[in-house]
C-alpha cells in the first residue's frame, strides 16, 4: 500500500528539522554548561595572571601565550608548505599517478588520529632529534597535522579561480609564475585564509599531540626549546587530575570562545569568497 505522499512529505519535514535542531541543541547545551560552570571564575585577573600551585590558583596567562605561540608558529610553517603543495598540484602538474599518490598521502594524513601524531612527534622530534619536550617539537608535530587541511582548502580555492583569468594573464605575456603569484593567489587568497583559520582552530583545540611533544610545563615559554602548555592541555590536566574543576571550566570557556571567534571569522571570509565570482 502506498502511503499518502503528503504525509511522507510532512513527516520528512518534521524529521529533518528535528535532526537539525538536535544538532544545534547539543552545541547550545555544551556551551551553556561551560558558561554556567566557567563564567563565575573568568575575569581579567584570570586571563592576565599566571597559574600558581599547579593551576589551583591564579590564571592561565602562560597557557594563553603557549596556545598562541603554538598556533601561530605552526601556521607560519605549514602555510608556505601547504600552499606550495597546492600550487604544485593544481598549476604545475597534470593529473597523473604521481599527483594521485600525493593526494592519497594528503588524505591519509588527514585521517590519522591526533594521538598518533603525538606519538610520532614524541619518538621522532622529542627523542630521536633530541628536542625534548619543547615548543619546537610541538610546532613541528602540529605543522604536519594541519598540513592536509591547508593543502585541501588551498587546492579548492585555487581551483575555483576561473581558468580564463589564467589565459588572459598569459595573453598579457605573463609567465606561469607571474600568473600564479599576481592573479591566482590574490584571487584565491580569501579561500586559502579560510583554511588557515580552520587550522588555527585545530591547533588551538588539540591536546593529545601537544602533551606528547610540547609537554605541559606551566612556565611561560621564552624560547623554542622551552616546554609549555596550551589551554586545551591545561584544561585536560586540571580536570583529569582533579586539581580544580572551577579553573578547568573557566579555561574551557576561554578556549571555546577563542575557537568560536576563529570560526566566525573563517565563515565570514568564506562568504566573501563565494560571493566574489557569482
Amino acid at each position, binding site marked *: 500500500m502506498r502511503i499518502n505522499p503528503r504525509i511522507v512529505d510532512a513527516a520528512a519535514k518534521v524529521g529533518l528539522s528535528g535532526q537539525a535542531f538536535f544538532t544545534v541543541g547539543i552545541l547550545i547545551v555544551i556551551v551553556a554548561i561551560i558558561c554556567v560552570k566557567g563564567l563565575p571564575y573568568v575575569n581579567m585577573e584570570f586571563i592576565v595572571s599566571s597559574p600558581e600551585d599547579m593551576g589551583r590558583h591564579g590564571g592561565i596567562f602562560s597557557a594563553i601565550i603557549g596556545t598562541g605561540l603554538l598556533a601561530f608558529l605552526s601556521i607560519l610553517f605549514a602555510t608556505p608548505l601547504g600552499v606550495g603543495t597546492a600550487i604544485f598540484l593544481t598549476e604545475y602538474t597534470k593529473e597523473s599517478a604521481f599527483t594521485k599518490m600525493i593526494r592519497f598521502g594528503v588524505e591519509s594524513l588527514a585521517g590519522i588520529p591526533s594521538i598518533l601524531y603525538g606519538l610520532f612527534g614524541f619518538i621522532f622530534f622529542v627523542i630521536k632529534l633530541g628536542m625534548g619536550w619543547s615548543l619546537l617539537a610541538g610546532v613541528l608535530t602540529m605543522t604536519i597535522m594541519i598540513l592536509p587541511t591547508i593543502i585541501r582548502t588551498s587546492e579548492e580555492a585555487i581551483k575555483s579561480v576561473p581558468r*580564463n*583569468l589564467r589565459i588572459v*594573464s*598569459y595573453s598579457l*605575456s605573463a609567465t606561469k609564475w*607571474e600568473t600564479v603569484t599576481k592573479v591566482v593567489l590574490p584571487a584565491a587568497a580569501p579561500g586559502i585564509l579560510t583554511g588557515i583559520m580552520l587550522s588555527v582552530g585545530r591547533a588551538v583545540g588539540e591536546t593529545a599531540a601537544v602533551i606528547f611533544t610540547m609537554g605541559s610545563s606551566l612556565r611561560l615559554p621564552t624560547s623554542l626549546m622551552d616546554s609549555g602548555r596550551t589551554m586545551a592541555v591545561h584544561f585536560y590536566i586540571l580536570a583529569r587530575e582533579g586539581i580544580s574543576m572551577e579553573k578547568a571550566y573557566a579555561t574551557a570557556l576561554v578556549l571555546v570562545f577563542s575557537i568560536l571567534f576563529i570560526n566566525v571569522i573563517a565563515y565570514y571570509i568564506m562568504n566573501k569568497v563565494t560571493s566574489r565570482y557569482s
Partner: protein
Amino acid sequence: MDGYALRTEKLNLYYGTMHALLSVNFKVFENSITSLIGPSGCGKSTLLRCFNRMNDLIDDVRMDGTIFVKEQDMEMLDIIELRKRVGMVFQRPNPFPFSVYENLIYGLKVHDIGSRKYKQETVERCLRAVGLWEDLKDKLSSPALNLSEETKQRLCIARLLTVEPEIILLDEPCSALDPIATLRVEELMVELKKNYTILIVTHNMQQAARVSDYTGFMLLGELVEFGETSQIFTSPKDKRTEDYITGRFG
C-alpha cells in the same frame, strides 16, 4: 598599406588527429582591420590563436608551416615578447577580480615597466583611448567585476593597450554585448586602427562588412577566400563564399 603585420605560409594545425587548419596562407596588412568569418568550427578562432600562441595552452596541438610577425619568423620570437607585441581580447569580457586600476596596471606590473607616475599616465591614456576615462576616473578603485558587460570589454581592451601591442586579436569581442554596445565597440575598433593592426574573428557577417578593410572566409579549416571586404561581400569569387554570405548555409 605599409606591409604585412601577420602572414602565414602553409599553416597546418592538428588537434590530436583532427586536422583543424589546412595549409592556410593568410595575411594581415598593417594598420588595417581584417576580419575572419565562417561558420562555427571552421577554424577561424584557431587561426587567430596561432598568432599569439594561445594554442600552446591546449594539450595535443601540433602545427607546421610558418607564421611571420612583421616578416619575422615566429619561431625566432620569444613567447613573452610575442604576446607583448600581439595582444588579445576574448569573447567574454574577463577582467581580473581586482579594482579597475589594478586591472589596468597588470601588464605593466608583469613587465615591471614604469614608475607610479608613468602607470597613472598610462591608465589615463588607455582609458581615454577606449572612451572610458570620463566614466571611470572616479571609480578606479572600485571592483572591475561590478561594471557593465560593455564597460568590462572596453576595460579589457584598455588593459591590453597598456602594454602597447602592435597587433590586436579580437575573438568575437561583441558576442556578449547588446547591439548598441556592439556599435560603440566597432567605432572604437575603427578609432584604434590608426595606431594598431586589428584582426577580428566574428560570427556576425554584418559586423565584418561594417568594420573591416579585408575579410577572410574560412570553411572546415580551409581559407576559402581572402580579399578586400567590399569585394568579398559584393563579388565573391568562390561559390562557397557566395553561399555563406547570402545565407544559404552557416
